[in-house]
């Protein structure tokens, strides 16, 4: 097998992007899985796509448009779900369809060829520049840093938001923070993974980790490992079979999920040992 391709700068950029994007997507994926909000990835990625198209159409950086629109989606979803008039899934569904409509509107209004717009839909990790990597690195450091800093508050909020509120935690701010982090992660990964495929990279690694552990800390770690593995194995398969990398990354993440589900210890009845309760 000729692996000399991995010596090239564009491939090294792709490997670093897969590492950073894998960690960021898989980390926000843990919230998505535990808060039962699988629709959030779809809604955010379509919002980011619509914003990016606006940028391409009007003539400013598509990433700025993507970031603004995904934050806007987060700002709409939060209060809609929070007021209890709609379930979070319904409000996410409404935002998703609205953003899809806006995206198609911009696509229709754009003059000339639409290849750059369609790149955002499918993603192209092999064309990532150092600016893309810097953006991904910043978002990944922010996401991981916030999770480490506010782990206990996040843990309480994903367990039960009303309980977190009742003990005096700012659970609503944490929920909105999670939505904004998801928006930022989707935006930063849009060019690499693509608006259509990013949903799987958010959901699959976390859903796989969820099958394997009863510890939330381990779930975050496993999810990040699976996210990075999905990216790297997907890249390798893409190169070996000469097929699009976005697709192979997502298919790899799905296979990891299936393997985790098959070997999940949660499918078996386990005897729990009584352990001494020493201070943690």
């Amino acid at each position, binding site marked *: 097998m000729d692996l000399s391709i991995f010596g090239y700068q564009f491939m090294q950029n792709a490997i670093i992007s897969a590492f950073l994007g894998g960690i960021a997507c898989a980390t926000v994926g843990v919230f998505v899985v535990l808060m039962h909000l699988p629709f959030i990835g779809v809604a955010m990625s379509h919002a980011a796509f619509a914003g990016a198209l606006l940028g391409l159409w009007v003539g400013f950086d598509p990433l700025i448009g993507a970031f603004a629109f995904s934050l806007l989606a987060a700002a709409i979803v939060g209060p809609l779900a929070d007021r209890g008039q709609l379930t979070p899934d319904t409000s996410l569904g409404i935002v998703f369809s609205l953003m899809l409509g806006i995206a198609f509107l911009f696509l229709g209004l754009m003059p000339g060829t639409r290849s750059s717009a369609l790149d955002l839909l499918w993603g192209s990790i092999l064309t990532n520049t150092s600016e893309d990597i810097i953006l991904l690195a910043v978002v990944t450091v922010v996401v991981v840093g916030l999770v480490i800093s506010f782990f206990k508050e996040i843990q309480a909020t994903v367990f*039960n938001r009303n309980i*977190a509120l009742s*003990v005096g935690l700012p659970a609503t701010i944490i929920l909105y923070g999670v939505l904004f982090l998801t928006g930022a992660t989707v935006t930063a990964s849009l060019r690499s993974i693509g608006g259509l495929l990013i949903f799987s990279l958010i959901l699959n690694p976390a859903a796989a980790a969820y099958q394997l552990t009863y*510890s939330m800390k381990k779930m975050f770690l496993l999810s990040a490992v699976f996210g990075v593995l999905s990216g790297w194995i997907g890249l390798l398969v893409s190169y070996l079979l000469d097929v699009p990398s976005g697709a192979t990354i997502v298919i790899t993440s799905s296979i990891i999920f299936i393997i985790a589900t098959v070997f999940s210890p949660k499918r078996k009845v386990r005897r729990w040992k009584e352990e001494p309760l020493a201070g943690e």
Partner: protein
Amino acid sequence: MTSTVISIKNAVVSYREDVALRGVSLEVTSGEFVGIIGPNGAGKTTLLTVVNGMGKLFSGQVTVLGDPLRQGNGRSLRKRVGYVAQVDNIDPRMPMDVREVVMIGRLGVLGLFRRPGKRDWQIVDEMLELAGMTHLARRPIGHLSGGEQQRAAIARCLAQEPELFLLDEPTASLDWKAQSGILELVKEIHDLRELTTLFVTHDLDALPHTCDRIVLMKDGLIVDDGPPDRLISTSSLSRLYDLPESVVEERRHHMHAKE
């Protein structure tokens, strides 16, 4: 010396077009054990949310633990008020053990950026022991039965070291044995800690026998307030639940038979 810990004057709370509380006034003194009963939709839960600062007042004045409730001070109040709700459906695969869930009770008191220390874990373990849950401390929370989950919720509430203990239908949907166990535990905690306790239930079977005082609620109003001997009578319950006295009498007969 007893002092007033809860003072509610003419509280009105509405959710969109529904008025949940229609001018409720209530005073509770330190160490009291108050049972709040009434049919579904009477405003009992809303009354508790007003006390712990989660309910939004439309009008009226509420003072809890000496602090008048204002917009913005609800969160600091909730750190001092323990709240146990009904059994909730917990995801059986939730990646948290019982001990971690009980620790949630300490987090508000701890504040942001501070990690639980040895002392916090020690308090958590003491409360687990009090709730009879030490042997299940490392069990995933989603693997517990309804009764065990409520014991864990009570341990979580006590880990907060609250000055007020609010229980909202804590025995709803539990079997009779689990229900009796929770009632015993609540009584023990009240006796041991002299914690001011508000216990809400729609089910007279689930009313602790040790209540000092009973508040009857219906249609968003307090319709009576007094000692259990006077209020737990066939005629007052018949009025409260809109049931003929004969039906109430028969149900009470069943209750005594069970005891």
